[in-house]
């Protein structure tokens, strides 16, 4: 019994927060400001408590498993959600249904935790649903905007479709191997056409969730339509969780099919990078721009995944840690601007530096980090993905990735140029920043600068990877 509590600690903590929120909803209700503060405190506590008393082991007949690496991954996601809760303080304070928003978001996070810990395909399916469906509801949180409902609709349809594909894959695997347990599957993989078919279906579901080209079509519309808090949750937390799970699924469960998935991952990675980059070149809306840039980033994550080594796993976790800082900083500032002025176009940012130097530097740092330019952490993150990918063999593949880094620099610089260089007679006025938001932005900024330079972080992550 004691084991149960300790092993499922991260999930139980999130569930406890959700229940607290539900009870608060039953009462006469706190004001939004107090409620938000309470939520933030709870999340800080949740995040801090995540570092202690982590156990290894499994529960429920291998349905649920946990180890140091999974605890770390959950903690990274916890930190990301905490940052989101801080970053969009002003928006949350005005949000009509704050409790529901966080209940939904934390439910999705709970789903991701179970997803990371799942040791069985059934558990896997259930948790992936739990992680996705609340987000579709979140996407609709701009109640007065048609585009938001459209985003939710697209999200739910595409995730329903991918769930169907996933279920089909799972049933085929069950048919071909007679088991759903992750630990039993590798021994039973014999390379028959049916199994490979099943694997491809399973992979497709991942591709949908991670918006790997050609399954990315929902991404930009959903990102653009959703409230920015939801967009950042989708693009950072949910993508990160799926990437973690993809790594462990490919490396552990489908290790016998390494040669097959290596070429799949390679081709998808190239296509994803190129498509993401080329579409990002022409975007005018900053959120859409970040959507396509995040597609390109997923292509990079795939480079690391293709390496099939401990270095690869470590690099992916490390990259996602950095990606959380970088992307959340960009989304945070975009959210501030959008909330204060309603402007979301890159052209509107012209001359932004004159009025808001602090925010401008944060955006610049985050974009440089996304582009992978030193001294930001993104440089290290991307380089380590590339080195681990190169160690797997295909040099041409790495060359294409390097070319894509240059293309991506072009469009990241476009935003920097608008902010710092282009003249504008009526730039966005000085934006007042809520202290909580400022704290979150400073955390993101120092994360971007320091994560790479403090080099033992990488080694520490590697020590936890198994």
């Amino acid at each position: 019994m004691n084991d149960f509590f300790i092993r499922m600690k991260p999930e139980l903590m999130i569930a406890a927060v959700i229940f607290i929120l539900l009870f608060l909803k039953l009462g006469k209700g706190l004001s939004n400001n107090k409620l938000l503060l309470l939520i933030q405190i709870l999340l800080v506590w949740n995040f801090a408590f995540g570092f202690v008393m982590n156990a290894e082991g499994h529960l429920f007949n291998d349905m649920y498993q946990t180890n140091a690496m999974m605890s770390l991954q959950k903690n990274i996601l916890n930190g990301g959600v905490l940052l989101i809760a801080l970053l969009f303080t002003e928006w949350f304070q005005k949000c009509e249904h704050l409790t529901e928003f966080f209940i939904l978001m934390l439910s999705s996070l709970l789903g991701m935790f179970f997803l990371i810990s799942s040791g069985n395909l059934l558990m896997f399916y259930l948790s992936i649903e739990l992680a996705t469906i609340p987000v579709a509801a979140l996407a609709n949180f701009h109640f007065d905007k048609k585009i938001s409902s459209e985003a939710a609709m697209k999200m739910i349809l595409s995730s329903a479709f991918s769930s169907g594909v996933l279920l089909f894959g799972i049933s085929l695997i069950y048919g071909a191997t007679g088991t759903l347990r992750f630990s039993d599957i590798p021994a039973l993989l014999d390379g028959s056409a049916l199994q490979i078919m099943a694997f491809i279906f399973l992979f497709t579901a991942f591709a949908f969730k991670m918006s790997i080209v050609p399954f990315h079509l929902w991404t930009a519309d959903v990102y653009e339509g959703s409230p920015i808090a939801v967009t950042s949750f989708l693009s950072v937390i949910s993508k990160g969780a799926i990437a973690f799970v993809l790594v462990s699924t490919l490396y552990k469960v489908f290790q016998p099919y390494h040669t097959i998935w290596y070429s799949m991952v390679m081709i998808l990675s190239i296509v994803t990078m190129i498509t993401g980059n080329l579409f990002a070149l022409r975007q005018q809306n900053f959120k859409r721009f970040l959507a396509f840039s995040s597609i390109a980033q997923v292509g990079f994550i795939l480079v690391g995944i293709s390496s099939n080594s401990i270095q690869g796993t470590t690099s992916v976790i490390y990259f996602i840690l950095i990606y959380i800082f970088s992307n959340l900083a960009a989304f945070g500032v975009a959210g501030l601007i959008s909330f204060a002025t309603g402007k979301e176009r890159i052209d509107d940012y012209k001359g932004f530096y004159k009025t808001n130097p602090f925010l401008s530097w944060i955006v610049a740092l985050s974009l440089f980090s996304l582009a992978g330019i030193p001294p930001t952490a993104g440089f290290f993150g991307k380089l380590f993905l590339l080195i681990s990918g190169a160690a797997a063999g295909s040099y041409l593949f790495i060359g294409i990735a390097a070319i894509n880094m240059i293309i991506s620099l072009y469009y990241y610089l476009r935003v920097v140029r608008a902010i710092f260089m282009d003249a504008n007679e009526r730039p966005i006025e000085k934006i007042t920043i809520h202290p909580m938001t400022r704290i979150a932005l400073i955390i993101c900024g120092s994360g971007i600068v320091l994560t790479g330079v403090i080099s033992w972080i990488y080694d520490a992550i590697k020590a936890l990877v198994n």
Partner: protein
Amino acid sequence: MNLLVLLLVPIITALAVLIMRHNNLVRWTAFIGSSIQLLLSLGLYYAFNKARAQGETSQMLFEQKTNLFNSWNISLHLGVDGISVAMILLTSFVVVAGVLMSWKVEKMTKEFFLLLMLLSMGAYGFFISLDLFVLFFFLEVAVIPKYLLIGIWGSGKKEDSANKLALMLMGGSALVLLGLLGIYLSAGKTFDLMQLSQLQLPIRTQMICYPLLFVGFGIFTALFPFHTWVPDGHSSAPTAGSMFLAGISMKLGGYGCLRVATYLMPEGAHAYANIVIVLSTIAIFYGAFATMMQTDLKYINAYSSVSHCGFVLLGIGMLTKVAITGAVMQMVSHGLMTALFFAVIGMIYERTHTRQVNEMGGLLKVMPFTITLLFIVGFCSLGLPGLSGFVAEMTIFMGAWEHPDTFHRVATVMACMSIVVTAVYILRAVGKTAMGPLKEQYNHLSDATWNEKLAAIVLMIGILAIGLAPGWLNQLVSPGADVIMQKLK
């Protein structure tokens, strides 16, 4: 001497600049910081010579190693030999002069000096690191400051030039990265330059990685046909930006070509030497002729930089000890000379508000100090004996002449002939600016201010020290070139 101070001083200066309230304090902080850098580098030179005189024969001095990323076998491995010391000296001279020349920057002063300090930190780090990963890190650290310096404080079509520069340099970095990865993987996962130099890299690796690295670094140092960022970048940059770009940043490429590509991959260097020579001869000639067509002073110096940096690559391509020594000397000499040239152009432009030589004339009468400087750098550029340009180029030609075959002789002779073209454009530009009737609107122009004079004097000391007594630089550099040559044989 602990080499880490060379990194810490710029960083501390940058942080100090950040907390200063007034523009004047910012300037003085940057000036003091850069002077400390200059003193440190002179101290380094002194300590280096002293250690050598005491019989310290190890290849790199003041070595230190701290592990950074154990999983990748990456460490902060620092150390210097004569070549690095020469480059560090160059960097510190140019940094001081650049800070002094930016005294009048009023727009976002704090950010300006912050970026200058970051740039100098990148350059120092690049020259002292003996770990290829760290070296690459510092190579790229410098890209963003350059981009912002040009894009924010530049003139003309600055945004496009900044974009072009950042993208081309990133392209160069991408090639360098690929080359480094090739070395890393084929040499058993180490980035350590000293360990790598003990190994014999497989021929196949050398054949693939040498061109990647050489072209990659070559883009930084205006290798033909990847020189196109040079004229636009230099002409749009603010004065200190041009000085840093031409004086330091372009030298990163030359140093990388020599230290990384040629040193680690001798077979590759031999195999591709002829292509390098052809490309650099084209750069020398093309640069010189392209300069003849320019009327904008900054474009004149930018294109002539293409031509002069061609000499650096020519020296490296010749693969003889004297030529390589000459190449390093040319890097130092050209760095000082071109920085001074851009400084003078900046002084003239600030007063006349034009850079077109046709619109000037007779300026010698109103600003004698500045125009005298212009004469001196002009003569230095065309290789007048007694100034640094002559010494460096002469050394390269002597090294090149060691090859008895027709191909090398032809390349050498062609490179020599370009000096005539240089004389034509320099004399024309200088003459049109300085001589002739003075235009009325320039009657009231004032001469250089104290900071400009000080900047010029700092650089002039360097130029004259090399030009009048080249022995010290030769002695400093040639043991380093010797080590590279032993590997090449």
